[in-house]
C-alpha cells in the first residue's frame, strides 16, 4: 500500500504536535523540575515547633544606659548584609528601635505613654502564627516553616509588595534600588539581595541550623532578649510568659505574633 504524500504530511504533523503537546503538558505538571528531597536538618540544629522571642523592655533600657550601643541592631544588620540607606523613605531594616506610642499605637493611654516615655521598644518581624503576608503572597515567596518562622525566598519574590500592604506591623522593607553599594562591610557568609525584592527579619534561620541562637539575642549584654520554643512548656520563654506581664503588638488583629514585650 502506497502512502499518499498528503496522508504522510498529515500523519507527521499530528505526531509532531502530539509529541510537543504531551511534553508540554508533562512539563507543566512536573514543572520540569526534579522533586526535592525532604530537608533533614543537621544534628546540631536547634529544633522547635514555634520559635518565639520575649523582649524585656526595662532591661533593654538598662542595657542602653550601660552603653550597649544597640549591639543587637548592629550585629543583625552586619550579619545579614542589611544596607544603610540614608533616605528614611527608602530604608531597609530588620530590627530597629521605636517609641511606645509608635509600637503600640492602639494603646492611646497617656499614662502608659508617660511610663514608657524613655523606654526603647525593639521592633522586628513578629513571625506571626497566622501571617497575613503569607496569605497574600501570589508566588509563595514568603511562607511559614514548620518551626513557625515566616521565611522569604528572595529568588522567587516578584516585588509586587502585596505582603507590605498586608503586614500590620511595618516589618517588611523593599529594595527600591540595588542595595549592594549601601552595605558598608559585606558578610560573605550570607547572601546580599538585589533590587526589586522584599526582605525582613528571618529569625536567624541560618544560625538555628548551626545550633546557634539568633544574633540579636546573643549580642545583648544584659539578656533583654530571650529566645525559645513556645510549643515547649519547659522552655525559658514559656516559663517567663506564665509569670510576667507581657503584651503583643496589635494582638486584636488575630495574626498571633510570636514576639512578646515584658512590661512589668
Amino acid at each position, binding site marked *: 500500500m502506497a502512502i499518499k504524500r498528503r496522508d504522510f504530511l498529515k500523519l507527521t504533523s499530528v505526531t509532531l504536535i502530539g509529541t510537543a503537546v504531551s511534553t508540554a503538558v508533562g512539563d507543566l505538571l512536573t514543572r520540569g523540575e526534579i522533586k526535592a528531597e525532604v530537608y533533614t536538618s543537621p544534628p546540631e540544629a536547634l529544633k522547635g515547633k514555634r520559635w518565639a522571642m520575649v523582649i524585656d523592655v526595662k532591661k533593654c533600657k538598662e542595657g542602653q544606659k550601660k552603653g550597649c550601643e544597640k549591639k543587637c541592631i548592629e550585629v543583625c544588620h552586619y550579619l545579614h548584609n542589611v544596607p544603610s540607606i540614608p533616605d528614611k523613605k527608602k530604608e531597609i531594616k530588620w530590627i530597629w528601635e521605636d517609641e511606645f506610642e509608635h509600637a503600640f499605637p492602639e494603646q492611646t493611654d497617656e499614662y502608659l505613654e508617660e511610663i514608657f516615655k524613655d523606654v526603647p521598644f525593639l521592633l522586628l518581624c513578629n513571625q506571626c502564627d497566622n501571617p497575613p503576608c503569607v496569605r497574600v503572597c501570589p508566588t509563595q515567596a514568603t511562607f511559614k516553616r514548620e518551626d513557625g518562622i515566616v521565611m522569604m525566598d528572595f529568588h522567587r519574590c516578584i516585588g509586587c*509588595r502585596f505582603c507590605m*500592604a498586608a503586614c500590620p506591623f511595618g516589618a517588611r522593607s*523593599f529594595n527600591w534600588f540595588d542595595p549592594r553599594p549601601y552595605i558598608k562591610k559585606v558578610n560573605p557568609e550570607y547572601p546580599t539581595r538585589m*533590587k526589586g525584592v522584599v526582605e525582613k527579619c528571618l529569625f536567624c534561620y541560618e544560625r538555628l541550623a548551626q545550633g546557634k541562637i539568633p544574633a540579636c539575642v546573643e549580642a545583648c549584654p544584659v539578656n533583654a532578649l530571650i529566645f525559645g520554643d513556645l510549643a515547649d512548656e519547659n522552655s525559658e520563654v514559656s516559663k517567663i510568659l506564665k509569670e510576667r506581664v507581657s503584651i503583643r503588638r496589635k494582638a486584636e*488583629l488575630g495574626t498571633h505574633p510570636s514576639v512578646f514585650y515584658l512590661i512589668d
Partner: protein
Amino acid sequence: MLEKALRGSKKYWLWVLFLLSIIFIGFLCYLYQFKIGLGITGMSRDVSWGFYIANFTFLVGVAAGAVMIVLPYYWHNYKEYGKITVLGEFLAVAAVAMCILFVFVDLGQPVRVLNVIRFPTPNSVMFYDVIVLNGYLLLNLICGWTVLHAEYKGTKYPSWLKPVIYLAIVWAPSIHIVTAFLYQGLPGRHFWLTAVMAPRFLASAFSAGPALVLVAALLLKKVANFDPGKKAIDSLAKTVTYAFIINVLLFIFELFTAFYSGIHSHQAPIKYLFVGLEGHAEWVPFMWIATILAIIGILLLVIPQTRKNETTLVLACIAVFISCWIDKGIGLITGGYTPTPFETVTPYRPTLPEIGITLGVWAIGFLIMTILYKIALEVKASKELVVKYEGILYKK
C-alpha cells in the same frame, strides 16, 4: 478587518502619532525604572503602592463598566444599545490591557512575573485577580471581534458565541469584587477594611465606565459621523446618574461609620485626605476637587434638561470620570497607607518618571481603543447604503 485601521484621514494619523510619541516617552521612563529600580518613583517603605496601583484600581472599574451596555442589549434585548455595544466591549479590552500593564510596571522584578503562573497560590487574592482580569480581556476581545466580524460579513454572529457573551456578562462584576478583595481583606489598614469596599467598586465602575463610553460616543458623533442614537444616549446617561449617586452615598456611609462611632483609627485616613493630618495635607486639594466635581456631576445629571443636552451631558460625564479617578485611584491608595502602621504620616507624591510611565500606559490604552473603535466604525459605516442622487446624499 484590521486593514481598516491602516487607512485613515490625516487627523486620524496625527492622533495616532501623538499617542505613539507619548508611549515612546513612557517607554524611555520605563527603561530608566527597569535599570535603577522602583526607587525612581515617589513610593516608600510606608507608602509601598502608589500611582500605578491607583490607576490599575480605577481602570478595573472602567473595564467592567462596559457590562452596563452589554447586559441590557443581550440579556433584555434592549435594541437601542445595538450600535454602542461594541464600543463598550472594546473599551473593556483597552481598559483591562491598561490594568495588566499597570500591575506589570509596578513589579520590582518584572522578569519573574510568570512566577504567578508557575507557582499558583489559591490563598492569594492576587492569583484570582490575574485569572479574572486576563479572562475578562479575552472574553471581551472574542465577543466584540466575533460580532463585528459577522456584521462585516453581513451575517448573524455564530450561535456558539451566545454562551460566551453571557459568561462575559457574569464575569464583569468579578473583576471588581476580586480587586476590592485585594484591599478589604488586609488587617490593620483601616481605610480598606470595610465590607462596602466591593459595592463601592461596583458603583464607581458602573458610573465611570459608561461615562467614558458616553463621552467617546458623542465625540465620535462629532469627528467620525457616528450616530449612537438619541435613546441609547438617554438610557446610558440614566445609568451613569444612578450608579454615581449610589457611589457617593456609599462613601457618605463610610463617613457616618467613622465619625459617629468616634473610632480614631477609622477617622484618621479620612481626615488625612480631606483636612490633613499631623501637618500633612498633600492630597487635600485633590479630594476637594473630586468632591466639587461630584456635586457638579450629580446636579447636571439629575436635572433632566442638562442631562438631555449633549454638551452639559459630556461635561457631567467628564466630571464623574475625574471625580471617580481621584476618589478611587489616588485617594483610596494613599488613604490606605496613611497613617502608617506606626500611626505616623509619610507623604507620597509621584515623581516625573513615574507620571511619564503612567501617561505612557494610558496612551497605550487610548491607542488600543482608537484602533478598535476605528475598525468598528468603518465596518458599521460600510454597511450603510448611501446613494447620491442629483448631488444630494441619501443615507438609509
